[in-house]
């Protein structure tokens, strides 16, 4: 993975000094709360329900074992012994004191980490595919370009006070695993028949209050031009995006208001001036950054390891884990392993300091000392020898990482919700746990098969509920917590938004509703269909009837 040189290191060190001074001036009353607010936000520091929340950047999801141990130490020293992984690959601590954050940043800087632009109306952490560099369907490893984008966006002087936050995702494989259609900028790496590499550029997607699928503004942009082109997009947005209403301030609203054609025309007009300029990426820089993402020292192994097969035959629990949590690798004899942070009854995405250290140890022993964070809030060991999987599984079990549920119903994406977050309308973790509890029978879970349930505690959609096959959204109804259910959302190449099934429900009824939807799917499904396939075949109305009975039928008629 990328390693800092003196320039990179100086910038994060200077950032610590800057923020320490800002905190001191705020404490001394020289900075008002209002003046301090965007400064702390751009260092990932929110003031939350119980205490400040501090969000650490994990650029494009890559973590070394050394960095993971640092996060473990921070969790133990400044938090209550745990942290939470978010859908932007970041780690959140829920209980630090503001006064401690400069020291936390200093500790992070020592391991080449930071909290730069993890919040605020600026360019946020760039996200990508958790299987970058190892996926069989990869066109090009997106991580070098993610790192180049990270550097370009870090302290970008023109774009620190945008109308609203700005999120970029890059996908380098045939299958979209980075939710690119729902980002402010989504980039697909493409290779033409004659070997040219570039991007399909999608702009104006987003979830939140007004979920919109992004639109293609350019079918093919040579990779060298990505910084100048992004600069043109951001400049048009910075100048003309709405600032009068924060709900209408994302770039998606500007793209919709202008129409994608006119928006693209304005971007092109701006780009004409920037194209080919000094920010055009050089081959030397691309090669320099790419050299950090070279293949590790893989062993030469047979494509299929016999002991891996034999262990699966002997142990059903291992076989189940292998089926759900282990993924094929492009190198013979290797596999990628997902460590589940979705053990039923725990807060999805939460990880204790002990677990972080255990994960770091596993990474050191089995996967070249590196980990990835997924936007589904799990961890990945990308490069594990098949012959080591059985030993890894036993250790992962001991650390509560081996729940065999990746892609199954209990592998829910869940935001921290009303237990922690100030923005939330409703709690999410206890309701998610109640749903997991309802589906605690592994055979049943297995029979249901692939299904994504995404849960957000409010319209800000941190839990990506819009693109869950079943989405759960916390809403405020007369100061009570209610939950609205959507069906049919999807990520991937056919990413689309779910549809609301009808009136919302109190917390206690949510597991019943999910069960009705799932039972109905099981009754209706045809051979080989996952939940989403059945939805595509029969549509929304039958699911409504399954939940609301004849009332829905009358309404539908």
């Amino acid at each position, binding site marked *: 993975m990328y390693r800092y*040189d003196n*320039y990179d290191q*100086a*910038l994060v060190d*200077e*950032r610590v000094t*800057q923020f320490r001074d*800002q905190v001191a*001036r705020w404490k001394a009353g*020289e*900075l008002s709360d209002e*003046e301090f607010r*965007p*400064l702390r936000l751009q260092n990932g520091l929110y003031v939350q329900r119980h205490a400040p929340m501090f969000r650490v950047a994990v650029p494009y999801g890559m973590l070394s074992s050394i960095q993971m141990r640092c996060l473990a130490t921070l969790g133990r020293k400044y938090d209550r012994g745990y942290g939470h992984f978010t859908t932007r690959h970041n780690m959140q601590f829920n209980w630090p004191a503001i006064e401690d954050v400069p020291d936390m940043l200093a500790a992070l800087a020592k391991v080449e980490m930071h909290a730069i632009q993890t919040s605020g*109306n600026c360019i946020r952490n760039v996200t990508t595919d958790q299987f970058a560099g190892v996926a069989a369907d990869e066109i090009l490893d997106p991580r070098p370009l993610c790192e*180049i984008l990270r*550097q*370009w966006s*870090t*302290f*970008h*002087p*023109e*774009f*620190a*006070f*945008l109308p609203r936050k700005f999120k970029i995702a890059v996908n380098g494989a045939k299958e979209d695993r980075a939710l690119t259609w729902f980002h402010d900028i989504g980039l697909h790496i493409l290779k033409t028949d004659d070997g040219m590499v570039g991007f399909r550029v999608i702009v104006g997607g987003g979830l939140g209050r007004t979920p919109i699928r992004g639109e293609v503004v350019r079918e093919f942009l040579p990779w060298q031009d990505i*910084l100048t082109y992004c600069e043109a997009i951001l*400049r048009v947005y*910075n*100048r003309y995006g709405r*600032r009068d209403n924060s709900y209408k301030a994302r770039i998606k609203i500007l793209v919709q208001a202008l129409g994608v054609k006119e928006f693209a025309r304005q971007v092109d007009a701006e780009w004409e*001036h920037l194209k080919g*300029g*000094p*920010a055009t*990426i*050089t081959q*030397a*820089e691309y090669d*320099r950054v790419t050299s950090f993402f070279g293949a590790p020292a893989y062993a030469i192994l047979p494509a299929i390891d016999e002991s891996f097969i034999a262990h699966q035959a002997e142990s059903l629990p291992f076989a189940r884990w292998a089926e759900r949590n282990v993924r094929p690798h492009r190198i013979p004899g290797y596999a990628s392993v997902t460590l589940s942070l979705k053990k039923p009854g725990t807060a999805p995405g939460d990880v204790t300091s002990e677990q972080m250290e255990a994960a770091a140890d596993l990474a050191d022993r089995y996967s070249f000392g590196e980990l990835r964070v997924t936007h589904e809030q799990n961890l990945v060991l990308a490069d594990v020898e098949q012959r080591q999987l059985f030993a890894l599984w036993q250790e992962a079990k001991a650390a509560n990482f081996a729940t065999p549920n990746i892609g199954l119903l209990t592998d829910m994406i869940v935001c921290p919700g009303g237990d922690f977050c100030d923005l939330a309308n409703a709690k999410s973790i206890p309701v998610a746990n109640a749903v997991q509890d309802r589906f605690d029978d592994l055979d049943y879970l297995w029979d249901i098969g692939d299904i994504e349930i995404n849960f957000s505690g409010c319209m800000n959609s941190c839990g990506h509920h819009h693109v869950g096959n079943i989405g759960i959204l916390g809403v405020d109804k007369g100061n009570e917590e209610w939950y609205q259910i959507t069906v049919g959302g999807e990520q991937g190449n056919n990413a689309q938004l779910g549809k609301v099934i009808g009136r919302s429900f109190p917390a206690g009824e949510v597991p019943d509703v999910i069960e009705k939807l799932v039972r109905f799917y099981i009754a209706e499904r045809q051979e080989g269909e996952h939940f989403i396939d059945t939805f595509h075949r029969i549509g929304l109305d039958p699911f409504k009837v399954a939940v609301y009975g004849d009332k829905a039928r009358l309404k539908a008629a």
Partner: protein
Amino acid sequence: MTQIIKNRQAVADNYTLVTLAEGEAPASTALPTGAIIVPLAVWQAQKSELTTRGTPVGVWLDVTEGAEDVADDLASLPVIAVNFPKFTDGRGYSTARLLRERYGYTGEIRAIGDVLHDQLFLMARCGFDAFALREGKDIAKALNAFATFKTPYQAAADESRPLFRRRTA
């Protein structure tokens, strides 16, 4: 006389900033004597008088106005001020970069309005070289802000080449 930051030093300000009252006609507004910085609307309405009055005259741009609006007049403007009604409104950063990098303006670009210590570094990178800090702010302390980061990544008005074209091992 109020002080501003100019070329990273606190200096006395010679200009009077002219603002229009609500409903006031830009063509007929009375102007003070001496060096002035006028709203774009006044500049457009009284350009011939302003260019012959024999005192330095600058223009200030509000957030909905841009570099394009003064592009033809740059040679006659010793100063262009860019207003920040709220420090969180970042449109002025683009205005300054366009003035410097697209239109080649070499005169003073002054940040006015809600101008604060912690934005000075970014503003300077975008081409601002003068800063009228919001009243009550500590100018001497704010001078430290310019040294916040030694070698930033991007090309901007202050550095034409991004770091990746300058990195040495």
